[in-house]
């Protein structure tokens, strides 16, 4: 059994996966550790001494959205990296501790499955592309508290793509077909929308560009639907007082809205009925409305448009036409919404849109495959430094294996200050726009700038400058520059590195 498992710690749902053989065919494949056939909601309920996590905690929610609701925390991941704690149930808790409770629950759930010899203490954990360094560090800390060593972080879209490709029985053939092609991963989940433009080149699956949007997550759609339901109910019963909700009705309404949202994916309209919604006499006490798909779509039109616009944005940044995309892999719960599917079809056509049946778990499966295959992340693009002659010097080359748990890599470079007249040496760290295109004329995308005080009275090319760039296990690069005469040091961090997966050693399924 693989010692390392895959874990998708999502904004709204989380799921762990291990890779193992099918008992009937002995072909290896993912074993997704769901709760009653569904991922575990990333919700914690602090009602007693021991926190309650998952579906039972979610059932306590009386409000839609992400955040803290009384003594329930939904999506604690979004609090990671924040300097303030989470005020829940009258107590301020550290986000690390709340996340640790979720991860501990997932680990104990996995351990309870009775997989022989797997202590579930090492995981490949997926993270959104927008997750900053401090949040990654806290996630690692939380995992440690939960008894899980993070073997490696992987961006969610990259894990989703790998999981999708790896599940293909003709994995190698698929890779051969994708050589030098571009794939867009479009992951629209309950909390965030993540996009990653990937390219397969020389058996390395590289991220080319990343984009994300935390303002169009599935939770926003739920809120809009609830708004629609209320408006329609109020239209039917103008005297209805929504401040007089029955104590338990909010949870039932949330559930009814969630059911309606799913139903509208397959029906043109759906009937919502919630008995005794309001503590008032008369027919308005019951929710009894019909919602049509066009009505719902009109309520979320801006959200859908904004999400789909992200595709155009990322393609524009990359400078590629939509026709250059080999296919779009659409994952996440929201892509089952007909309006979104329609929008994606308009952009990519029916043949280039790949909708996966296991959209809720493909990220976790990808992480598990990465753990199983033992493939490590590598730097998709080099970290370069702009030289005074406008050329770029490679500090950390492309293809450099990125450090695993507890490790750090680094590189040093020395140069002389060309123009100290203003008292500062300026550094620009950048990467080529495209992987494997690091020649002089290729466009660059900046990572960060750095200025270090130097001796302004010294003549040019006298003061030596030392540059040291390191990348830690949280995949954060730190660039440190030091002026040897003035003796000043400055540093900055790079959080948006792009990664690649070397798949050269991975065989087809069943033939590991």
């Amino acid at each position, binding site marked *: *059994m693989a010692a390392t498992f895959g874990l998708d710690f999502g904004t709204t749902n989380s799921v762990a996966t291990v890779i*193992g*053989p*099918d*008992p009937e065919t*002995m072909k290896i494949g993912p*074993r*997704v550790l*769901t*709760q*009653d*056939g*569904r991922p575990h909601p990333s919700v914690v309920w602090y009602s007693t001494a021991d926190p309650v996590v998952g579906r039972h905690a979610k059932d306590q929610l009386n409000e839609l959205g992400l955040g803290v609701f009384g003594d329930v925390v939904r999506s604690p991941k979004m609090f990671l990296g924040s300097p303030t704690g989470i005020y829940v149930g009258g107590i301020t808790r550290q986000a690390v501790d709340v996340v640790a409770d979720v991860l501990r629950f997932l680990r104990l759930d996995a351990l309870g*499955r*009775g*997989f*022989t*010899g797997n202590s579930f203490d090492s995981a490949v954990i997926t993270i959104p592309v927008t997750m900053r360094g401090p949040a990654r560090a806290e996630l690692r800390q939380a995992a440690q508290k939960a008894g899980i060593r993070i073997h490696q972080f992987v961006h969610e879209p990259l894990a989703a793509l790998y999981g999708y490709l790896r599940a293909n029985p003709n994995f190698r053939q698929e890779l051969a077909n994708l050589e030098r092609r571009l794939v867009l991963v479009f992951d629209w989940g309950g909390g965030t929308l993540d996009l990653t433009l990937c390219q397969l080149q020389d058996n390395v699956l590289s991220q080319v560009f990343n984009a994300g949007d935390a303002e169009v997550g599935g939770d926003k759609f739920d809120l809009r639907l609830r708004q629609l339901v209320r408006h329609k109910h109020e239209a039917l019963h103008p005297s209805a007082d929504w401040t007089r909700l029955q104590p338990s009705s909010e949870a039932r309404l949330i*559930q*009814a809205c969630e*059911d309606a949202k799913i*139903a509208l994916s397959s*029906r043109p309209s*759906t*009937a*919502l*009925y919630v*008995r005794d919604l309001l503590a008032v006499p008369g027919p308005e006490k*019951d929710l*009894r409305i*019909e919602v049509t798909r066009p009505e719902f779509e009109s309520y979320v039109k801006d959200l859908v448009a904004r999400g789909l616009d992200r595709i155009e944005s990322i393609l524009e940044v990359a400078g590629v036409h939509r026709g250059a995309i080999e296919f779009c892999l659409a994952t996440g719960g929201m892509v089952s919404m007909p309006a979104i599917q329609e929008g994606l079809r308009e952009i990519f056509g029916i043949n280039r849109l790949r909708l996966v049946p296991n959209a809720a778990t493909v990220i976790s499966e990808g992480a598990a495959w990465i753990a199983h295959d033992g493939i490590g992340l590598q730097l998709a693009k080099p970290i370069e430094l702009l030289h005074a002659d406008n050329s770029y010097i490679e500090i950390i080359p492309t293809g450099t294996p990125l450090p695993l748990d507890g490790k750090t890599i680094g590189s040093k470079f020395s140069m002389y200050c060309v123009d100290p007249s203003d008292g500062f040496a300026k550094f620009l760290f950048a990467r080529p726009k495209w992987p494997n295109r690091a020649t002089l004329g290729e466009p660059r995308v900046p990572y960060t700038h750095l200025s270090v005080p130097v001796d302004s009275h010294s003549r040019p090319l006298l003061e030596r400058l030392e540059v040291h760039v390191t990348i830690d296990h949280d995949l954060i690069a730190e660039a440190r520059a030091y002026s040897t005469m003035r003796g000043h040091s400055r540093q900055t961090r790079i959080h948006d590195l792009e990664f690649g997966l070397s798949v050269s050693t991975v065989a087809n399924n069943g033939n590991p």
Partner: protein
Amino acid sequence: METNDRDATPHAPTLGTKPPASPTPQAFPPSPWETYLIGKKTAADAFLAKMGKGAITIPDQQTKDRFAEAIVVKPARLTRLIFLLQACGAAVPTIRNILADLTEATVRRLSVITVPVSLEAAAYEVALTSWLSRVPKTPLKPAELNILFLLLHFGWQRGLLDHRFALTLLSSAVSKPVKPPRKSKPVEPVVLPPAKTPLEALLIAPPARAVLISLVATSQAWSSQSDKLSRQIKSQTAEIERLVAESSVLKAAIAGYKEEIQNLKTQKAAAEGRVADLERQMVEIRDGYQHKLDDLRGRVRGVLQGQLTRWLQTALDAARSDPPWTKAIEERLEDALRLIEKELQWLQPSA
């Protein structure tokens, strides 16, 4: 001891120097051994043959002392003792032992060397070398040669000498020194004319009968010893060859066994690997079925507790409402039926 001895007697000892106190002569008839020394000259081999016949009387200490004293009184009698020693090879062992005791008594009485108490070879050789170094001139005079022979015979009888040392000593004794020997240094042996073969050694000897007889006897003895050693070497060579052949066979057998062991080890490792693989597969199959079962239970529970129960409850609520809301009832029931159908499909073995 040697140093003290040298200090006490700075000059080489000679016979007739002040002897130790002699025992008081007593009036009893001389023993045959003494008679041989002082009486009429008799052939040594005949005398020894005669002494060996009948009952042999072992000389007591007094007899041995008188024998030695007779030589001390007249050192020329030493020649007769040497004749006896040279002839005793054919005598019976008892006679040889008696002669050895008499020789020892004589050596001790003469006091030309300090006989080590414990009679160790190394100490005896040192004593002989020391004695020879104190002799003022080489080649030795006949009387000194007699003493040397006596000492060599005694040493040989008692197993205190080997032939190499004896030859070295003799060589020094009969050769002229290249340089005058210093007092404090032992006499260096003079290198004799080189002789590559025994015949060459015979031919460079003085053409005297006694010398030639002695050389021939020496050559025969060496030849006999050499033949014996050659036979031993041959026999041992054959034994070595046999053992080498046997060793080769055993080595081949060992190599075969080693190969067999290696094969067995490889087979064992393969079998263990196979067992481990099968055990792993068993665990994986068990885990896989357990996971499938848990997954199935969870899914069924999820369906029953979740959507199905909720939809049926909603349908029931809508049916009980006033007026009943048919659309909601129908829709939820349709959803429930569709879900049941979907789950039934999923539960099919081929799914």
